[in-house]
């Protein structure tokens, strides 16, 4: 029998939604016993986002957030949108033609990692127990099928499954309500969606992969508050876009978001990003600078149409674990926070009056919230881009967002599955990526080095295969095993040996981005939690 602990609410994942939920619970009822589990070595270690943040939800959580020292230090001062025509040319979109949802007046350039660290301090100040270094590895159920809590993973287990001298059995955390806020494609959230059929009636979920770097640049090039977005080159075989934000302390962040419904198996999001940085629009800021950090994370972007039911018996699914990101704004922090706060408000009501049903109580609060109207109003944005392409989709979105305010009387659906889009390698053009120059562009391994990622070496592999013959079988034959290219951390390799190809999984490099779990055409790879504290140690990402 594993040891167990009892709580009123257990929250899985110390990101913006989970921490906002914990804080709101304690604000509404200080007597509640609330705990937050976080698999990273510290809060913020696994957090990666652009990020330009809209402070709306934060203002509702803490009216005096500025006084309390929330790390929103750089207001957006200038907003630019570019269309990159090729490796040299670009066109800046006139401000009047930018969809309203993509304008950033009143928003802040932040490090979401630092914002989460601050939120965790506030939560602890209110009496929330925050436990970094502990991964929720397993969902526990009552006999009636409702969620009972979670169990943390065992520590000190060898690669072959034996107990080492440091072995420590996982613990059960039981709660009246368990809140899952693991971020995009949470491995427990995925199980819950399936078990409770939370996505019945919703469109299939859609995903993107975001790759990001943090740079220290020369003072004369730094313009705090400057925000650049753009699309076009180098993405020819996929949709997506780039961002470049000038934060504080002479730092800029640059990143590329690649939609994971791309078809060409030769595409490498990592290398698309590396060559993007050579475009003059980007290179003008990075040249002479130093790269400080690197990371990647998948993004849930299906929006309103793909949003699953967020409550189930004994549990709630919030933030990007459910998919509350507003894709038209390319922002998910304020919506994730709001979803956590609404979940907390619903739970607090049910704690006060046990006769209330959690699901209906939450739905009522949700339906009356700005979160609902924001997600509903932008429901067509991504499907329009997918259906009509960048130009006509963009025109549709301009009319919908700027003239009709999101009230276009139709709803577009995108019912395709991201992983099913891959075309045969033999029928797809190979992409010739330039070699990295070591100044603006770099190889995968020197990038992974900067993510400070580490996993205890002697532990079971946390990237599991349902069928170990697929990578070197059908995946290799049809798609030249695309995991070698879509993984931004070089985890997967096909090694040619005398007795044939071998599929090697370098699990130690893993950045916990979840792309393999999403994009494998055979849906053969399942990401599970490694030993707690394993994974990247991002600074202010």
């Amino acid at each position, binding site marked *: 029998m594993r*040891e167990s*602990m009892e709580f009123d609410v257990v929250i899985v994942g110390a990101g913006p939604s989970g921490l906002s939920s914990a804080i709101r619970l304690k604000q509404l009822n200080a007597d509640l016993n609330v705990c937050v589990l976080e698999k990273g*070595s*510290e809060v913020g*270690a696994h957090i990666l986002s652009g990020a330009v943040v809209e402070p709306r939800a934060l203002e509702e959580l803490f009216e005096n957030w500025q006084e309390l020292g929330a790390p929103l230090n750089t207001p957006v001062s200038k907003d630019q949108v570019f269309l990159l025509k090729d490796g040299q040319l670009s066109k800046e979109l006139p401000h009047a033609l930018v969809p309203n949802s993509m304008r950033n007046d009143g928003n802040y350039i932040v*490090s979401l*990692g*630092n914002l989460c660290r601050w939120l965790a301090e506030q939560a602890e100040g209110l009496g929330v*127990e925050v*436990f970094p270094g*502990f991964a929720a590895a397993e969902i526990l159920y009552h006999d009636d099928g409702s969620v009972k809590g979670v169990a*943390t993973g065992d*520590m*000190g287990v060898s690669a072959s499954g034996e107990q080492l*001298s*440091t072995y*420590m059995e996982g*613990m059960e*955390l039981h709660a009246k309500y368990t809140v899952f806020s693991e971020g995009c494609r949470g491995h427990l959230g995925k199980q819950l969606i399936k078990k409770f059929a939370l996505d019945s009636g919703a469109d299939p979920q859609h995903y993107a992969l975001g790759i990001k770097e943090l740079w*220290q640049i020369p003072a004369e090039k730094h313009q705090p508050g400057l925000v650049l977005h753009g699309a076009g080159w180098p993405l020819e075989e996929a949709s997506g876009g780039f961002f470049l934000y000038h934060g504080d*302390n002479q730092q800029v962040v640059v990143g590329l978001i690649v939609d994971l419904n791309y078809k060409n198996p030769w595409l490498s999001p990592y290398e698309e990003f590396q060559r993007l940085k050579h475009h003059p629009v980007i290179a003008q800021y990075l040249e002479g600078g130093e790269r*400080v950090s690197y990371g990647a994370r998948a993004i849930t972007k299906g929006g309103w149409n793909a949003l699953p039911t967020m409550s189930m018996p004994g549990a709630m699914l919030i933030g990007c674990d459910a998919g509350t990101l507003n894709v038209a704004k390319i922002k998910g922090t304020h919506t994730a926070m709001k979803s956590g706060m609404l979940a907390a408000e619903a739970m607090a009501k049910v704690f006060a009056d046990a006769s209330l049903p959690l699901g209906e109580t939450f739905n009522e609060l949700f339906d009356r919230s700005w979160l609902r109207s924001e997600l509903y109003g932008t429901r067509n944005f991504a499907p329009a881009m997918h259906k009509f392409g960048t130009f006509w989709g963009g025109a549709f979105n301009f009319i919908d967002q700027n003239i009709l305010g999101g009230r276009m009387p139709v709803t577009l659906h995108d019912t395709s599955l991201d992983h099913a889009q891959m075309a045969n390698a033999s029928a797809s053009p190979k992409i010739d990526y330039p070699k990295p120059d*070591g100044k603006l562009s770099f190889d995968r391994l020197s990038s992974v*080095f*900067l993510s*400070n*990622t*580490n996993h205890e070496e002697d532990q079971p592999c946390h990237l599991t295969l349902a069928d170990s013959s697929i990578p070197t079988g059908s995946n290799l034959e049809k798609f030249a095993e695309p995991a070698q290219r879509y993984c931004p951390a070089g985890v997967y390799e096909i090694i040619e040996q005398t007795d044939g190809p071998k599929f090697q999984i370098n699990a130690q490099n893993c950045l916990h981005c979840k792309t393999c779990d999403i994009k494998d055409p055979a849906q053969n790879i399942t990401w599970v939690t490694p030993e707690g504290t394993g994974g990247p*140690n991002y*600074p*202010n990402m």
Partner: protein
Amino acid sequence: MKILVGVKRVIDYNVKVRVKADNSDVDLSNTKMAINPFCEIAVEEAIRLKEAGIASEVIAVSVGTSACQEQLRTALALGADRAILVESDAAVEPLNVAKAFAKVMEQEQADLVILGKQSIDSDNNQVGQMLAALTKRPQGTFASKVDVEGQSVAVTREIDGGLRTVKLALPAIVTTDLRLNEPRFAKLPDIMKAKRKPLDTTSFADLGVKAKQHIQLDKVEAPAARQGGVKVASVDELIQKLKDEAKVI
């Protein structure tokens, strides 16, 4: 028997160290900090002595800013009974740390002090030896085995080319090497309990220690970046390059 263990807050061993642009120091902004691995081994050894019924109390001691409380709480979660922070915002120097430990050792009437042999940030390897000199007590450094027998402690030391076992009269100072033990993981309930364990804060002034600055940090430089290799077309070209460019033959 009372044991004091040293706990230093250092940059996490997983984090890539960056030098500040002006070379004045290592850049610690936004970096993950952790308990020094050698100190973690010291904490583990002390807890094992307590579990074996040899030690009655384990006190974790740190010198540094208030942020060091985080690492002291970790030591408490691992099993230390209480903690003392000698709070100081100034750079921590080995001699001052040793002086502070000497005072705490005297106040607490500690029988054994277990310290990491060095910290992974400054790599000084000095505090244990200085503390032994200041308190005029015996020292067993680089320990890979510690056996307390009555009023003495047998310490097996890792030395060049072998092991040397010394027997020290208590009170004594021991510094830990890597192979002494493998530290445990903290358990969730113990982390919660650790929040309520006593953590006292004191200062150099309260201890009567003049924390004079003896060391001035002039400059920190990153190792030179490795130059990329080149492919040569022939053995002759290789020989020519080794002669003319590398100048090694």
